[in-house]
């Protein structure tokens, strides 16, 4: 009951049920933004259990969701102007689709939760509306057998719920197909970027200070010339793999994500080379720029490959096949690049 978004309660045969609103507050929106940037994402949760939206009674529909607060908020926001019961499952604060993959949003938890909130006492009907993407965790026929409640799979997007409800719980084929539009890919970029920058914080100082080995004008002159260029080139590689590859995904050639990342990396390397301050007439200079033509595409390919986890259409079998070929090439590419770069420093 003592959660900031709870506004009073509703009396039922099974006791008092906390009431929530369809209107999100600034605090709710700010929480979503923080979660998108990976800030306290695992603490962005709702207590599992039953909630009342508006003034539901014993005939009101029951919607089931995960206890990731973003999932809960998207659902109540979509049901504006309607009464509903919202049954929140304990998914350890993970969203519906991913929790379904682990079966925490699963048949067992659903059946247990129906019993623990005494749902059969609160509503007289025996139907539940679940998000379609909970399918990997739920066996609808088993839920019916074990709890008596019939599972109705709603649309993928909560925003389609009003149309779905008004059509008598019928989804159009569009509602049942997971999209991966530019906007959907873009909102996933910050979390990818934050995750990547975390381990980059270890690498960037190494590149900067190693640059001090280069040139004959002293250590600091070397860091400012070779170290700084390495830092910028490395950041461009990250931007290529973790930002540009996800956003430009459908327009990059190939099917494998690592290949898309590789192509983006080659383009990025050409752009970086255009701003390279070195001398191509010297062996050291050539080695330095060739080093980045290995490093940037290899890093970009690796990061592009990592975006498979955020994408909505890659299979595990496919990712394994892609990785069998891509990972060795990425490792070799980074190895050759690093070797060339260090040689170029020692020769400069």
């Amino acid at each position: 009951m003592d959660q900031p978004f709870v506004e009073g309660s509703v009396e039922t045969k099974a006791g008092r049920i906390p009431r929530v609103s369809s209107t999100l507050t600034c605090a709710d929106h700010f929480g979503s933004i923080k979660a998108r940037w990976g800030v306290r994402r695992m603490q962005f949760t709702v207590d599992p259990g039953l909630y009342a939206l508006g003034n539901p009674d014993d005939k009101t529909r029951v919607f089931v969701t995960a206890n990731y607060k973003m999932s809960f908020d998207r659902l109540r926001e979509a049901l504006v102007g309607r009464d509903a019961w919202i049954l929140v499952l304990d998914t350890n604060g993970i969203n519906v689709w991913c929790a379904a993959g682990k079966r925490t949003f699963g048949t067992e938890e659903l059946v247990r939760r129906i019993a623990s909130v005494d749902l059969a006492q609160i509503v007289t009907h025996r139907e539940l509306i679940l998000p379609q993407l909970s399918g990997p965790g739920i066996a609808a026929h088993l839920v019916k057998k074990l709890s008596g409640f019939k599972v109705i799979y709603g649309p993928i997007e909560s925003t389609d719920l009003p149309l779905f409800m008004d059509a008598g719980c019928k989804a159009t084929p569009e509602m049942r197909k997971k999209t991966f539009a530019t906007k959907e890919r873009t909102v996933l970029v910050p979390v990818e970027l934050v995750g990547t920058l975390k381990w980059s914080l270890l690498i960037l100082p190494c590149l900067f200070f190693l640059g001090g080995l280069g040139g004959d004008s002293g250590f600091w002159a070397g860091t400012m010339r070779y170290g700084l260029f390495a830092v910028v080139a490395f950041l461009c590689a990250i931007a290529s793999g973790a930002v540009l590859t996800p956003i430009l995904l459908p327009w990059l050639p190939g099917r494998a994500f690592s290949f898309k990342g590789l192509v983006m990396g080659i383009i990025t390397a050409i752009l970086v080379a255009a701003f390279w301050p070195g001398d191509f007439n010297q062996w050291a200079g050539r080695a330095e720029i060739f080093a980045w033509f290995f490093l940037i595409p290899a890093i970009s390919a690796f990061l592009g490959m990592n975006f498979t986890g955020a994408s909505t259409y890659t299979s595990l079998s496919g990712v394994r096949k892609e990785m069998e070929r891509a990972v060795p090439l990425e490792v070799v590419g980074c190895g050759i690049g690093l070797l060339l770069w260090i040689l170029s420093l020692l020769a400069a």
Partner: protein
Amino acid sequence: MEKFVYLRDVVTLALDPEKCVGCGMCLVVCPQAVFSMHDGIAHIENRDQCMECGACSQNCPTAAVTVQAGVGCAAAVINSALGRDGSSCCCVIETDEGSRGGGSVCC
């Protein structure tokens, strides 16, 4: 047919028409429109669209649809190969359910 298609001929999806009772649950839960219904029996229409999420096999009352379910996540494959539990990352591929990696998770 779609803008996004992943690698060809890799997925483990299979459908046994002998067992299919034509309930249509696989068509309902599939987020990639892989299935179609002809003559009261489900068919695999867009095989390469399958992402092996496992919703179809999980909701098939007669076990006519089978798939090696998992999350297509490179970070999870790396974590699994390194023997990490993945608590620092979003995805986990659980290997205790079978040698080829049974259930898997992502957040």
